[in-house]
């Protein structure tokens, strides 16, 4: 049933002379462009783009879409990514005329509704985080980290302090150390203990007057809440340092605990995770940040403010780090976030986290007899199982299980992350799945574990392709189509 002809590359489907989009005849004089521009600036050789009809294009991309798993079609327990249902109403509302067709530099007077929405959203972000000052500008979580670290660096510069170190637990996302490097900080790794918590002795030995920021993901990527967070914060604050919270896992604590109340000075949200912005095959996300009021002067410009009854985009903050995005950030994602928060209200958001944690614990309780879960009887929004025993005993890896799950019609968990757990399989069901779906997933997993090792090594067998050669792709990279191979 698969249409293999339509899923050839666009360039192979093309035929000289085919046309799709046509403009009307020009209603102004058509001066030859050679007369308008210097010859050296003009294109003299034909542009190499494929020529297709509209029907070719529609069928091609429709058929390509059918080769993807997605939240709309499959259970997607990809740990750390919070693949929850993306409400259809948000798509419609974010595409309303007057929302989707606003130019970023149009006068504030002509965008009062948008500015009001963003201003309200800032207050929701502040309320959920317990941190009062907000910047909507960062375009992704990693961009939020970078922006907050810049604000911290500007703060220390303003105080006349030179601080060089950013401390990061070994279980953190790779973006944390990468962001620290971009602001000129040195990353210092802090060990985790066997139970996943921060090794306080290691932390104490590394904290000093050079410590600028401690970056922590709490709840952690292991799905555990760091109980020592207030002691950590006290230690860092005692040397004048700041706590940064990677908000990737906010889905576990909405309305239950607030980063600002448990010691964080700065944080980012991932609205595409926590607040259901669609992941779009890898983006766009957004990375708004919240900070304590003493850091507010350093946030990027412009910021949404209210003066009397009027809303404004305000760039007049002399201590600001500057601008981190071409315009105002990923507003389209933030509009969906606004819709999501309004659809749940304050109480509903708490319920989101309660159901997310319930679903994760239910899945954990059912999976623990099947696969070891090294850390924890209980979890927050996600947990990390390990296939290392299976690997030793039967030669079955986390990758084998992941691939076989695809045959059963489930997206695989995140595998081989976090790096601190061998043969890791990180599972996050989210709150938008039913008990029946969770049961079906665990049943499939149980079935898979009873299959022989060869079946698993051969998986997947029902997908359009199976186990592509990634080494070859990296050794002899082919990163574009060419007419003559």
């Amino acid at each position: 049933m698969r249409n293999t002809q339509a899923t050839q590359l666009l360039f192979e489907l093309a035929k000289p002379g085919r046309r799709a989009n046509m403009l009307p005849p020009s209603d102004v004089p058509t001066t030859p462009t050679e007369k308008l521009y210097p010859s050296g600036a003009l294109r003299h050789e034909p542009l190499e783009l494929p020529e297709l009809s509209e029907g070719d294009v529609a069928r091609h991309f429709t058929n390509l879409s059918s080769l993807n798993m997605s939240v709309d079609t499959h259970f997607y327990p990809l740990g750390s990514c919070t693949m929850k249902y993306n409400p259809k109403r948000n798509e419609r509302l974010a595409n309303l005329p007057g929302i989707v067709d606003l130019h970023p530099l149009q006068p504030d007077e002509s965008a009062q509704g948008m500015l009001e929405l963003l201003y309200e959203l800032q207050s929701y972000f502040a309320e959920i985080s317990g941190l009062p000052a907000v910047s909507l500008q960062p375009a992704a979580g990693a961009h939020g980290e970078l922006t907050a670290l810049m604000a911290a660096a500007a703060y220390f510069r303003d105080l006349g302090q030179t601080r060089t170190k950013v401390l990061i637990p070994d279980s953190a996302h790779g973006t944390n150390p990468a962001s620290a490097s971009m602001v000129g900080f040195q990353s210092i790794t802090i060990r985790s203990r066997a139970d996943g918590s921060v090794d306080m002795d290691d932390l104490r030995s590394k904290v000093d007057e050079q410590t600028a920021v401690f970056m922590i993901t709490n709840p952690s990527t292991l799905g555990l809440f760091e109980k020592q967070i207030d002691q950590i914060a006290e230690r860092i604050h005692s040397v004048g340092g700041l706590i940064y919270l990677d908000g990737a896992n906010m889905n576990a604590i909405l309305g239950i605990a607030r980063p600002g109340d448990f010691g964080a000075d700065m944080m980012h949200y991932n609205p595409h995770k926590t607040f259901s912005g669609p992941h779009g095959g890898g983006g766009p996300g957004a990375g708004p940040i919240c900070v304590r009021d003493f850091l507010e002067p350093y946030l990027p410009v412009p910021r949404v403010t209210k003066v009397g009854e009027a809303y404004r985009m305000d760039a007049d903050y002399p201590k600001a780090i500057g601008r981190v995005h071409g315009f105002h950030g990923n507003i389209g994602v933030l509009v969906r976030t606004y819709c999501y928060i309004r659809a749940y209200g304050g109480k509903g958001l708490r319920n989101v986290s309660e159901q997310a944690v319930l679903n994760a614990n239910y899945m954990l309780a059912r999976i623990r007899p099947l696969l070891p879960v090294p850390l924890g009887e209980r979890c927050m929004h996600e947990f990390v199982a390990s296939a290392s025993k299976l690997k030793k005993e039967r030669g079955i890896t986390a990758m084998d299980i992941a691939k076989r799950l695809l045959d059963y019609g489930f997206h695989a968990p995140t595998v081989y992350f976090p790096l601190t757990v061998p043969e890791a399989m990180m599972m996050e069901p989210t709150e938008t799945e039913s008990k029946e779906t969770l049961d079906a997933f665990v049943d499939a997993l149980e079935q898979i574990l009873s299959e022989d090792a060869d079946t698993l090594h051969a998986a997947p067998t029902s997908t359009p392709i199976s186990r592509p050669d990634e080494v070859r792709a990296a050794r002899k990279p082919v990163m574009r189509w060419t007419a003559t191979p």
Partner: protein
Amino acid sequence: MAYLFNTSEDISAMLATIGAASIDELFAPIPSHLRLTKPLAIPAALSELELTRRMGELAGRNTGVEQAVCFLGGGAYDHFIPAVVDSLASRGEFYTSYTPYQPEVSQGNLQVMFEYETLICQLTGMDVSNASLYDGATAMIEAVLLAMASSPNRSRVVVPDSLHPHYRQVLETYLQWTQFELQTVACPDGVLPGDAWSAALDDSVGCVVLSQPNFFGIVEDLAPAARAAREAGAVVVGVCDMISLGLLASPAQWGADIVVGEGQVLGNPLQYGGPYLGILACRENFVRRIPGRIAGQTEDRQGHRCWVLTLQTREQHIRRDKATSNICTNQGLFALRAAIYLALQGPQGLRETAEHCSWKTDYLRQSLQGHERFTVRFEGSAWRELVVQDRAGDVAGVLEHCRQQGVLAGLALGRWYPELDDCWLVAVTEKRTRDELDQLINRLNAVPQSSDLAHA
């Protein structure tokens, strides 16, 4: 509750399996003194009907470019978006999927990335494109950082002030934490000053940024400026408008080593500034350091051609603090839209779109000829954008007058260029009709003198 599943019966059964007495017990790992003890101060839930009403109300207080005649540009443009783009990109199989970590169930997205990368290479003449970055400005930053990392022992970045002011601001923000020094070359005539440009170049310059067209809409032959930079040993970063490439020489031809651009123009809505699409492509020799995701071709174990994410050893999840960039995402959905847009346009469609922009900009220029109050500020050849000067010096009054008449007439330049505070920037895309251009001229003719405004 809006999007939840569990019934009270489900909840009891699940708690029994877990062995917990209540949901609250599951939160026991959070010490009670760190818990929030009051409800979030966020308004109560809205039903879909109420939310739709609320959003309609907010939208109604905005004037979108579909309701006004839009001459706003400055890095984001009101180009036509064919229905096919919206229709295909709104398929749930695309927009509710994620990063292709499991290539077997992501061939759709991976093939789109590979096609996008190829289309961008075809358009720019570069060898390699990544699968996109946040937006044009941040793509330029990544290009500059890539260029500087490839130019050891060089510390200066040179840009003309005809480069988009926001791009320069973002550059300042990022470079203040590095050892690199930013030098800006003034362009008082709206074009690169040949001698001053060459004078700024020496063996301490690691990277220059050139823009085609520049912020004032002017198209230049950039080959001499690029050549001078390369002779000084600097890497040349080109900031290009992707629609203009239907008509203008590819940046590879005029000498760019790395090309970046704002992909919003390729079928992406304005959305008040984002999400947009950061395009970055480069010559082969930069490939091991290029930031962001890349899809590459390979074979599966049956020998079928297929696509995977590749060269991941550059990236932060493996390299951590030694990574070439902290980027951990691409704008997949907007790269998809750009690929659909370019596939629909083809070489001929893109060329015609670029030509329509030329002709309409030129019509505006001609219409202003001999006007007693308004004049075109710079001599150069403009594409899609034009700097207009108000000899009466009341740009704010002119723009506000037009806005009240339903015409968003452009962007005042004084906020970025104090010496141009009597000027504004008018953008004319293929969507603007002759009638609308005449309407703009009529509105301008009807602007009261500033002294009249003061008495009004």
